[in-house]
């Protein structure tokens, strides 16, 4: 009993540790990576005894200290309680969504089997969407509580944009659900270990390429970053929904954005890129289609799988940053047209084609 609680606590710690630290590191990658992309030096002003550590000191030490020691300004005519509550509401869903994403297969130690996933619930995907739909409140309430016209406009834009793209996101995942026939992320990841015609891994990207494009676009839009950063829109709305936020509360909005991206990357990995699966790696080692086998001990297999998951996760985090520093901002009507007139019909068509395909072939895969 105590041991089982301990295992759950350890997994919870691990997941939070992963999300929070990746979010922090992404802050550094964003600053240094953007400098790399724009051919400039980037953050290097802060140093400890002459050691700048490629901007690490700047981002991981100087920035937080500056954020946390700045004045926490609350607009005098705003809503004090809601102004404080809003950053928490933005941060909370971003942190707990990762709970259902599996980061490895079953780890067997002695007679005990540990499922490398924090919460194994049979409605995992619905849970993710339920939590994602709560993410809107942080923006909307923060915008309203600031009692500022620019903030309110940013909040209205943000909520409209997030609701629009949630529909496209949900429709794209429907295709994945139909193909794998389950709502449970761990089972989806497991099903992707099968091979098509004996040599192609049955990953989501292979079976549902259109759904991947839809999901990825919607995920970038949900993160509210360039090219979809209309809720902020510096050139139009000062800073949008967080115009009136400073210090630690602004840091929370900022960190929530990165945590959301980590979760989105985890979702893309799990749904479309096999989760913790490595091609041809079975429970007892590699089984290559050219009939050669490499047997590996259990711990090495689990370590490889978890490492593979982390690698894919980090890759998609980097892809998010790459997109943010490559594309210019869309116009608002373009964002809405993309969401409703392109992603939505394509998503519906993908659903119909997938259903027809499954009926004609008479089998899910």
């Amino acid at each position, binding site marked *: 009993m105590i041991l089982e609680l301990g295992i759950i606590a350890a997994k919870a710690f691990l997941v939070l540790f992963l999300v929070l630290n990746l979010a922090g590191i992404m802050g550094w990658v964003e600053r240094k990576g953007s400098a790399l992309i724009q051919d400039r030096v980037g953050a290097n002003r802060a140093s400890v005894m002459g050691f700048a550590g490629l901007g690490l000191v700047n981002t991981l030490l100087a920035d937080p200290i500056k954020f946390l020691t700045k004045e926490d300004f609350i607009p005098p005519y705003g809503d004090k309680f809601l102004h404080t509550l809003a950053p928490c509401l933005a941060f909370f869903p971003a942190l707990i969504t990762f709970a259902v994403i599996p980061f490895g297969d079953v780890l067997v130690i002695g007679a005990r089997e540990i499922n490398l996933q924090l919460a194994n619930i049979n409605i995992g995907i619905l849970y993710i969407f339920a*939590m994602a739909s709560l993410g809107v409140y942080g923006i909307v309430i923060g915008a309203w509580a600031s009692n500022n016209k620019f903030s309110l406009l940013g909040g209205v834009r943000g909520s409209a944009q997030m609701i629009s793209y949630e529909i496209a996101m949900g429709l794209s995942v429907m295709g994945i659900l139909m193909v794998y026939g389950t709502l449970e992320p761990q089972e989806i990841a497991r099903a992707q270990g099968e091979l098509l015609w004996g040599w192609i891994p049955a990953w989501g990207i292979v079976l549902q390429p259109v759904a991947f494009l839809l999901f990825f676009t919607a995920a970038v839009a949900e993160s509210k970053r360039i090219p979809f950063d209309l809720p902020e829109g510096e050139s139009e709305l000062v800073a949008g929904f967080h115009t009136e936020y400073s210090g630690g509360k602004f840091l929370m909005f900022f960190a929530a954005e990165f945590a959301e991206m980590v979760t989105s990357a985890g979702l893309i990995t799990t749904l479309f890129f096999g989760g913790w699966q490595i091609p041809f790696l079975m429970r007892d080692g590699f089984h290559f289609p050219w009939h050669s086998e490499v047997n590996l001990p259990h711990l090495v297999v689990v370590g490889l799988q978890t490492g593979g998951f982390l690698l894919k996760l980090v890759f998609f985090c980097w892809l998010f940053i790459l997109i943010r520093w490559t594309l210019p901002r869309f116009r608002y009507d373009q964002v809405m047209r993309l969401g409703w007139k392109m992603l939505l019909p394509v998503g519906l068509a993908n659903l119909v084609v997938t259903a027809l395909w499954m009926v004609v072939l008479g089998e899910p895969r």
Partner: protein
Amino acid sequence: MNVEMIGFFFLASLLVGFSLLVIFVSNPVHSALALIAALFVMAVLFLTLNAPMVAALQILVYAGAIMVLFLFVVMLLNPGTAERKSALWWAGGSLASALLVLELLGLLIPRSETTAWPASRIEGPFGSPEALGHILFNDFVLPLEIASVLLLVAIIGAVTLARRVKE
């Protein structure tokens, strides 16, 4: 008084508390937020009743989608504090709610003497997505389709109202 009962009474009192806040808070935005909190607690109650699907849909549809639109409208109109209603209005409202309570009590009291309410959770596939899907698409296909047509009518109506009339 086992753990489940304590959990139930804790959640139930939270639910009642948030529901009371919805009607007693004067600021409409605060009121809408209290409603979101109440819906969230209700979803947790569904979870303890072994109905995760209903719980997830409760948050996804009501707390996540419908209430955002509520907040949207309230914020854009920004009505400030709610206007005071007359005594007659209050009396009418109280009478209507008293009738509702009476009706519910009439349903609850006679049965509690004759039949025992099932105190335990229903185990098995009840409340899972598969079970819900089977029931919806086998036993209740017609009501489901009628409900979806009703929603379609509402959408078409909204689009017609919002369409710009060409002059």
